[in-house]
């Protein structure tokens, strides 16, 4: 049994969780696009507020959501630091040694806020339905089937790889292996990683054989769809309205 469970939040219950997958995907994508094209800080902040509100409604633990934000934050931080210094547009904020362009600072902040807001919305997409449901909806919305299969199998193999990794680690631990910075440690680690790759390769071959033996011919059987109800469309309309409104604040 695998302890690794990226889908754990998808089993919560909220108005966002019980929203039909395709309408939710489309609406949230529209919101993300609207956030990304926001032209100034006020609009971006409104987008951020709506995204955070949605996280609260979804019941995803806020602390975890915020912890997740460190990745986009780290990614966007250089912009916030570099833009104010490199932009050469008046007026300048003068801190003695450091002259900072007001325009550059605005731009940096705008990128940061837009990025975080979009990341929160993306987190809602990932956190309110299991991965496979999202991928299946994307494929029913026109994503090529081969691409969908790649995503689904990658997802499956991540678990296998994780299990193999655990097994390998346990086996190394139980034989008293301790990581040291010497040639022997490095050699053992390299061998272990090579074995891991070989094992996952052979594993994937076995899985493929099992698929063939059940008549797989390169196509995944279609998954039955949920019906779209009025309430789903209503939720969609609300999100789209929000996506428009943030540009008129």
């Amino acid at each position, binding site marked *: 049994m695998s302890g690794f469970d990226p889908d754990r939040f998808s089993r919560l219950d909220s108005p966002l969780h019980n929203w039909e997958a395709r309408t939710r995907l489309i609406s949230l994508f529209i919101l993300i696009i609207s956030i990304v094209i926001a032209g100034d800080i006020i609009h971006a902040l409104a987008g951020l507020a709506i995204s955070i509100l949605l996280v609260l409604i979804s019941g995803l633990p806020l602390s975890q959501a915020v912890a997740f934000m460190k990745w986009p934050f780290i990614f966007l931080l250089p912009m916030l630091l570099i833009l104010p210094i490199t932009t050469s547009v008046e007026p300048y904020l003068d801190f003695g040694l450091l002259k900072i362009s007001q325009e550059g600072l605005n731009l940096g902040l705008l990128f940061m806020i837009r990025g975080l807001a979009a990341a929160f919305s993306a987190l809602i997409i990932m956190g309110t339905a299991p991965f496979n449901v999202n991928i299946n909806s994307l494929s029913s919305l026109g994503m090529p089937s081969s691409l969908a299969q790649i995503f*689904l199998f990658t997802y499956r193999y991540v678990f296998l790889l994780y299990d193999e990794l655990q097994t390998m680690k346990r086996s190394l631990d139980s034989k008293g292996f301790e990581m040291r910075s010497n040639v022997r440690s490095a050699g053992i680690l390299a061998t272990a990683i090579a074995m891991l790759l070989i094992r996952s390769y052979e594993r994937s071959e076995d*899985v493929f054989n099992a698929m063939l*033996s059940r*008549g*797989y011919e390169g196509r995944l059987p279609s998954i039955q769809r949920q019906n779209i109800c009025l309430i789903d469309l209503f939720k969609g309309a609300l999100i789209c309205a929000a996506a428009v409104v943030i540009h008129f604040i």
Partner: protein
Amino acid sequence: MINREDIAIEVDDLSYSYPDGTLALDEVNFSLKRGESMALLGPNGAGKSTLLLHLNGLLRGAGKVRIWNKEVSEENLRWVRGQVGMVFQDPDDQLFMSTLAEDVAFGPANMGLPEEQVRERVEWALQSVGLAGLSGKVPHHLSFGQRKRAAFATVLSMKPSIMVLDEPTSNLDPQSKLEMVCLIREQQRNGAAIVTATHDVNLVALLADRVLLLDKRVMAEGTVPEIMSQRDLMDDLGLEMPIIADLFQSMKEEGLYSGAIPFKRDEAMEAIRAMLRM
């Protein structure tokens, strides 16, 4: 005279070496009829899994494999795989979809059944293996025993006329082993021909009527009593006799017992009662 239409599997002079040169099968011959259950017994590395992989065309060695009198070939692989359902030794190889229901639906959907029928099959198969309540679960979150049964269900849902099982009882608790045996017998009663590779000598009499002893070559073949009461034969292959048969065989050797060797508990009870009455 055997009716040829009743022959489910026929293997003729099948030999196979893995690409690294390991000879795994050496001129194997056997056949299996409709409604028969056969145990495939042999030590580790005897080629049991290798033989099973040939039965639905996943491996192709020298020699012939016929399914319902049709030789397995590139052209009829699709048909063969619809006939021969294979349950793998490791359930994790078999479960790859994101929910249990999707996994069980995979085979029937590939066979092109209409959606309604696929749903019925899924429900029925999960019911049969006792996992009806778990259809929405992610397969890798099930316990090992549950995954083993789930893997069985993914094949059961295709309603194959032949079932090929690779160690279906390994690593199961005693209760689950007996449940698996019941499941196998139930498929046999429904008319399926069944081949089960196993190390569980004590279960052989419960789950099969015939035994094929394999160690790269066919070492012996016959009914369960014929094969499993030959202590030397079993010893040579590093296998044991079933514990009940072993006991009665020893008593026979000591002259304490003279009847037929029992393999099941009730047969043994009967034999003991008869001895006490004397």
